[in-house]
């Protein structure tokens, strides 16, 4: 049946090529409508409790996309008219940025930063520096004095050394286009930066903007990678067709998704190289025509090829279980893409090869094949006999040790700053500097929710907030916190002539209500209280300012929040975790580890099922699990060692990479098995398999590893790290396939390879796979 299918493909090759060509065009059209990334909701775990709290309150208590801009005076303090004018310019211009929530632009120059003073009829809330900047020395000195005495401004919006001013700006999630926002904010920053004034900025949209900024470089490296890939294939195969055919893969231009694209391309190349190698071998072995050789190659490799593709696709579709929409999209795209390899590589490559004109002429004189053949022959001699047992034992040891270290992998970001960019990148330098001067730019809000209006005016609610803040601030990475419990004592003090002995809560709910009423009626906009409490004071937010968003920092904070909530129950009220950037990061980190382990488990299950069906043996499943598990534990150990955290960016690579390289083992083991069935001894079979499929594996892995090395030059640390990971992963897979798998066959002599009576009775196991 398979033979008929192969004959059909080769026989009606024009038709097949046309159909596949049309399909490709169709897919291309469909692919152009797929949209990946930029929708921030896609990055968050669906239905996670934190994310639900975040979505409920983000409009007022702060989204995860806040941008912090800091204007620094290079000398002296900021209280100079020209400096303050530029601060005012930035504050006003930010209103024009697309997607900005104008109510959430806060700086010394905004109307929201008020000075509360007592007046003849109660309180007066007067903006500190709005609408006009003081122009004379007296006005500047007065402003400086007021800033120094205002604890809600000093330290938060003006640095304690008075040398820098901070602007925060928030966005409507659904209107935000990060790259556009980055471009516009940068233009504003450039317009005010100059001698004596320096602008720094951080925040997720800024980060996204930087990533997009490096897109041209990314494309250059991608081109270089493809060039290297081509050059290497050309060098190895010495023919143009061997170079061009494996390149039949799609390309996607999101800098973060490009790594995923490469993962899939790697698989595509692997399958094609195997077919081309086999085609050459068939010609050498005496196939009369290209058609005959192509037919034999396709027939021989169809089973391990399809097994590889199906196992890979199965491993990828598992990722759909990760409750993060972005991952689900990536999983679907990856699965579809990998499935197309079944057509593009396993069918299309031999069909195209059948057109090759004989005799083959080499396109260049450098021939690496004899060397490679000798290496493979040497390898074949060394993986049998006593060495096999040593190899298996060493592999077992490596597995145990790396399995142990794999659990050291850090969930979330492992270093301060953004892991996407290099530590000394402009963005990370800005982040470090801002977090040194100010209490922290990564915010998390925790909501104290009551059951009815005015609940958070209750003294015990405010007292709980205050104690909560003291408790949380004990963590060194939390630079400060802010809540209604900070504001009310200040209002009371002002009401009591500014006497510090009266900086305290009102005695009861009513007095607290009166104080807040006085604050609002004194000229403050009702919305000014919105970042602290909702309009009917049923819920209030405590905002925590983090100096970094490392996984450990956020996990410790979340554990402490839960600890506090458990130890301090408040009847009728509850603490809800957690919103803002740090809040949703906590949610993502919580699902990542479990999802990844689950993905590995289910991917292994898929693998075992595929093998069991193909070879009618659960042992086969066990056998092929070995290289996959080994590659996973070693890569995880490497990530733990190098401090590469498992986060929303590395997760796609780790998840989609689970099945990477397992096809190497399929090709080699299948080759050994076929040779044994032709009556060869085990040693001969291994030697022949390594000389055939093994050579293809070596060429593929070597080519890909050298090609991904190009990404070491990327300005995006994420890309260079992921490239390194993939190189390691491919290296381990190739090593397992070339050395460990044959050694394991020697040691364990598994029935499905050796062809025991039971296996032999199943006449043509490969027919169990329907094309």
């Amino acid at each position, binding site marked *: 049946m398979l033979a008929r299918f192969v004959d059909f493909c080769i026989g009606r090759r024009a038709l097949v090529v046309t159909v596949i060509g049309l399909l490709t065009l169709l897919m291309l059209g469909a692919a152009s409508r797929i949209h990946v990334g930029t929708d921030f909701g896609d990055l968050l775990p669906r239905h996670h409790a934190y994310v639900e709290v975040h979505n409920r309150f983000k409009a007022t208590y702060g989204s995860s996309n806040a941008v912090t801009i800091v204007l620094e005076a290079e000398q002296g303090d900021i209280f100079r008219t020209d400096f303050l004018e530029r601060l005012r310019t930035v504050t006003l211009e930010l209103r024009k940025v697309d997607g900005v929530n104008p109510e959430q632009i806060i700086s010394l120059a905004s109307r929201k930063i008020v000075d509360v003073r*007592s007046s003849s009829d109660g309180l007066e809330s007067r903006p500190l520096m709005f609408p006009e900047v003081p122009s004379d020395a007296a006005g500047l000195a007065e402003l400086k004095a007021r800033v*120094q*005495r*205002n*604890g*809600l401004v*000093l*330290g*938060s919006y003006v640095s*304690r050394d008075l040398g820098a001013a901070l602007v925060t700006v928030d966005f409507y999630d659904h209107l935000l286009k990060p790259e556009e926002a980055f471009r516009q904010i940068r233009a504003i920053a450039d317009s005010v930066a100059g001698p004596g004034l320096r602008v720094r900025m951080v925040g997720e949209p800024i980060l996204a903007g930087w990533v997009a900024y490096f897109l041209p470089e990314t494309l250059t490296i991608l081109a270089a990678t493809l060039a290297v890939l081509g050059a290497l294939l050309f060098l190895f195969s010495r023919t143009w067709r061997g170079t061009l055919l494996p390149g039949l893969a799609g390309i996607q231009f999101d800098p973060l998704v490009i790594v995923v694209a490469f993962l899939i391309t790697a698989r595509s190349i692997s399958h094609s190289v195997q077919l081309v190698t086999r085609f050459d071998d068939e010609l050498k072995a005496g196939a009369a025509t290209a058609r005959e050789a192509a037919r034999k190659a396709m027939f021989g490799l169809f089973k391990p090829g399809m097994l590889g593709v199906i196992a890979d696709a199965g491993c990828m579709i598992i990722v759909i279980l990760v409750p993060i929409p972005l991952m689900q999209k990536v999983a679907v795209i990856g699965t579809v893409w990998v499935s197309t390899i079944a057509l593009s590589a396993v069918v299309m490559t031999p069909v195209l090869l059948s057109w090759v004109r004989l005799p083959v002429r080499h396109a260049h004189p450098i021939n690496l094949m004899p060397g490679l053949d000798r290496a493979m022959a040497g390898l074949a001699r060394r993986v049998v006999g006593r060495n096999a047992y040593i190899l298996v034992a060493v592999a077992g040891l490596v597995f145990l040790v790396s399995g142990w270290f794999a659990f050291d992998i850090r*969930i979330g970001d492992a270093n301060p700053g953004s892991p996407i960019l290099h530590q000394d990148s402009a963005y990370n330098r800005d982040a470090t500097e801002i977090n040194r001067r100010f209490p922290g730019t990564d915010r998390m809000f925790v909501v104290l929710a009551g059951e009815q209006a005015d609940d958070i005016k209750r003294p015990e609610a405010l*007292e709980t907030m205050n*104690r909560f803040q*003291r*408790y949380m601030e*004990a*963590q060194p990475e939390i630079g*400060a*916190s802010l809540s209604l419990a*900070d*504001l009310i*004592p*200040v209002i009371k003090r*002002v009401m009591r*002539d*500014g*006497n*510090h*002995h009266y*900086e*305290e809560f009102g005695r009861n709910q009513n007095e607290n209500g009166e104080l807040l009423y006085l604050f609002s009626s004194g000229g403050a906009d009702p919305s000014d209280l919105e970042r602290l409490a909702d309009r009917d004071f049923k819920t209030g937010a405590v905002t925590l300012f983090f100096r970094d968003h490392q*996984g*450990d920092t956020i*996990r*410790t904070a*979340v*554990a*402490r929040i839960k*600890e506090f909530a458990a130890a301090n129950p408040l009847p009728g009220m509850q603490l809800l975790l957690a919103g803002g950037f740090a809040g949703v990061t906590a949610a993502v*980190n*919580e699902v990542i*580890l*479990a999802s990844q*382990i*689950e993905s*590995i*488990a*289910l991917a*292994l*299950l898929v693998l*075992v099922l595929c093998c069991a069906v193909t070879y009618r*043996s*659960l*042992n086969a499943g*066990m056998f092929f*699990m070995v290289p996959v598990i080994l590659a996973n534990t070693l890569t995880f150990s490497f990530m733990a060692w190098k401090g590469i955290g498992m986060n929303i960016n590395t997760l796609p690579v780790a998840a989609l990479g689970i099945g990477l390289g397992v096809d190497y083992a399929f090709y080699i083991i299948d080759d050994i098995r076929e040779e044994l069935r032709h009556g060869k001894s085990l040693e001969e079979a291994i030697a022949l398999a390594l000389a055939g499929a093994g050579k293809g594996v070596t060429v593929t892995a070597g080519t890909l590893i050298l090609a991904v090395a190009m990404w070491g030059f990327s300005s995006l640390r994420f890309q260079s790290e992921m490239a390194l990971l993939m190189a390691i992963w491919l290296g381990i897979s190739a090593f397992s396939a070339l050395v460990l798998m044959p050694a394991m066959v020697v040691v*364990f*002599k*598994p*029935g499905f390879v050796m062809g025991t009576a039971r296996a032999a009775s199943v006449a043509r196991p490969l027919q169990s796979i329907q094309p």
Partner: protein
Amino acid sequence: MSSRSSFITSLAPLCIIGGLLYAALYIKPAGGGTALEPPVIAPRDHFYAMVQAAAGQFWAVGNDGKVVLGDGRGRWQVQASGTRAHLQAVDAWDARHALAVGNEGTVLSTSDGGQTWLKAEAPVSATANKLMRVQALPDGQAVAVGEFNTVLLGSAYGRHWERLTPEQDVAWYGLAVRGSRITVAGEFGRLMQSDDLGRSWRAITTPTEAHLTAVAFADERRGVAVGLNGTVLLSEDGGRSWLPVGQGGEEHLYDVSWDGRRFVACGDRGLLLESADGRAWKALDAALGEARNFLWFSRVVPGADGLLLAGATLGVIHGDRFVSLASKAAGTSGPASATAR
């Protein structure tokens, strides 16, 4: 390969997968480091008062019931006060006996150097009951004053208290006891005196309507009272009559003390004043430098080797040099600490 080992190796993959699934369900990244010790002196702490009890033994009290014991060199340890009320004042009889008072009529005393602080029942008003000052007297006696015309006489090192004055709507902020003469000063320029340890009182008129926050005497005759808006009053007849004295500023003054050779006063914006005669005042705050702009001090009292300052931070003035006693740098007050008036 025997059928038994084949059976085992067949089950192995399922076991591994099952194990991983189990791990996925139950392994959670460790929270780590939940047993964080809060800093002894936190950014949110304000200290309303400090006292030296013995050589190398200092108590400071402040907001949210904070009590710390220090060695005078910046090393402090937190003591459990058992209250969350702001503590406004502290005084000590000796290294073991001390007492602190504060909001919500809180009176705490210790007789073991602060290992345990016990809450005493004091006859305070239910309406308004913040206690602002306390002074330890010989023989384990003490006087405390506060809101709603509260003057309390304590005995047995602060365990027992009696009320010396009826409840009325007047808040007392300042207190000076010399022998059996008690002088208390309060809101709207009010002042009263007793010569018999509080059994009888006479009201004294002063030339100000400003709230008076503190009063101190150099001897039987010469005394100074200070208050909000830079108010300074001088008496040279033991407190029977008071004259306004200009000191050149309008910042709030929160405290005044006699250190044996001069009056010293402190207040908002790092304001520190000294005067040998209570009449001519000069600034002492050059020592604070730029930091004075966001520091405030609610207490200045003489210590064995310098003036002790409590407020936005803790410190001591040696000669004309300010030394911070808080582990945080001078001038780093909490988010809601500085004043906007």
